[in-house]
């Protein structure tokens, strides 16, 4: 059964302006709106489209996070994922551990494709897809803006600093997705009802032999340095003067 695994992460919603905790141990997440990581939503949408083209039979959504992550997985199921797995933990799991968990799930689920967001917008690490591809010894294509699947291969367009890069990779492979790949669908109410009946299995880190201990120590978290208050000018002449004073024109 051709299967796609999609990784989804519960993150602080992208519209929230996060604030650093007064004790500098992290950012305030209590009472803050949480959502599916936007890049993961795009990965899921792409998996669903590949399935709708008849190239996959099943889309499996996997997340690692606290019990409340069920909400995001139910959203994924409502969008159209067939089933979900939550690896439940309150610990912050670093990318290499996430990759190790996915690596084990790959052995069990035998996907022909793993689709992940290119980064999560909380830690902004952007590591998990590449790490997973390394552990699996399979191709990776990072920041895909176009994906075509045919004949056991994927032809992907990647957004790179210099422009666009087209790669051909043998499947199975790990692809990470960028913003312009697609526009994720809206979830309809009947789909939310249907999603409640879809299977959602809960596992633990222990099931994967992954420890809760962080690999890196968080020394502290600070707010970013603030820029000093600027000036408003009333017309172009004043703008040019202000730039001249700074020696910029």
């Amino acid at each position, binding site marked *: 059964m051709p299967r796609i695994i999609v990784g989804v992460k519960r993150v602080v919603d992208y519209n929230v302006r996060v604030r650093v905790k007064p004790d500098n141990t992290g950012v305030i997440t209590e009472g803050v709106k949480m959502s599916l990581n936007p890049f993961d939503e795009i990965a899921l949408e792409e998996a669903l489209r590949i399935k709708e083209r008849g190239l996959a039979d099943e889309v499996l959504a996997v997340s690692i996070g606290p019990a409340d992550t069920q909400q995001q997985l139910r959203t994924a199921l409502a969008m159209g994922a067939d089933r979900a797995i939550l690896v439940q933990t309150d610990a912050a799991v670093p990318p290499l551990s996430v990759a190790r968990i996915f690596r084990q799930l790959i052995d069990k689920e035998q996907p022909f494709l793993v689709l992940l967001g290119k980064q999560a917008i909380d830690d*902004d690490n952007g590591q998990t897809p590449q790490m997973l591809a390394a552990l699996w010894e399979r191709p990776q294509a990072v920041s895909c803006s176009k994906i075509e699947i045919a004949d056991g291969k994927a032809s992907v367009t990647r957004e790179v600093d210099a422009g666009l890069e087209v790669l051909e990779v043998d499947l199975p492979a790990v692809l990470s997705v960028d913003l312009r790949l697609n526009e994720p669908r809206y979830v309809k109410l009947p789909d939310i009802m249907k999603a409640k009946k879809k299977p959602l299995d809960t596992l633990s880190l222990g099931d994967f032999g992954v420890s809760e201990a962080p690999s890196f120590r968080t020394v502290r978290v600070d707010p970013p340095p603030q820029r000093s208050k600027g000036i408003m000018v009333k017309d172009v002449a004043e703008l040019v003067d202000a730039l001249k004073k700074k020696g910029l024109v």
Partner: protein
Amino acid sequence: MSKILIVAEHDGARLNPSTSKCVSCAARVPGASVDVLVLAGDGSAVASQAAAISGVGKVLVAEHSANAESLAAVLAPQVAKLAAGYTHVFGPSTTFGKDLMPRIAALLGVGQVSDIMAVEGSHAFKRPIYAGNAVLTVEVPADAIVVATVRVASFEAAAPGGAAAVEKVDAGVTPPSHTRLVSRSGATTGRPDLQTANRVVAGGRALGSVDGFKIIYSLADRMGAAVGASRAAVDAGYVPNDLQVGQTGKIIAPELYIAIGISGAIQHMTGIKDARTIVAINKDGEAPIFEAADIGLVGDLFSIVPEFEKQLGG
């Protein structure tokens, strides 16, 4: 004593300036010696450019026909082998380094520090999280090899004037054939490179069309500036993706950044926080871009921009 290996970014002929910025970052690590690794089909031209960066001890050149295309899956196993004996492996936080470095880290069985913006010790670094709305100081265990990407906008290029020895190396790894490059296309505009330009003129959705964006190009050309854009302008198809500035685009640190018709979403501000001077031109006086701007001007960009260009003189 830290021994740092930097993976060079290049296009086969020219060393990317990101490499020199990695050398600057590495030089901040206490007591560090710094070597540069050039993986290439023919690495001779790039190796001599790397050898000329001040502070580089040695340039290692790993030549293989498969290396010519700079594919992460091909390069990573070689770097992982050649990293033996090093305490740190750094690469730039460009699309090249972001693709490659985590693959190396996983092969070495260690985590990665993404986007180093400051060095706090041999194993402690500052890095941005939440689109730069918080800065994390993170410490890597002392016994682990440090694999990291360097946020190039946070470091000046290292001075030229070095004369490092160049040494050929061979990782003895058979590269995989499961990943193949089909094509690479980029705009060769003749304009300064967005990532390294001193001046950047950027436009947003308010430009309204491909045609509307022409006033941005015109002003940029008058000023000798690179052209940038907000995500909204790229999504709308006014400009190609490689002009996008922000959390998921390019992070830049020019002397002068002129944001025209850009509202200033958090994700965009991430990309320009290190600009020395930010000028904002927008018709909405409440736009968040004005909170970060050093100089703000409220008004209709279609009259302001041509007027601005005119007043700059010829």
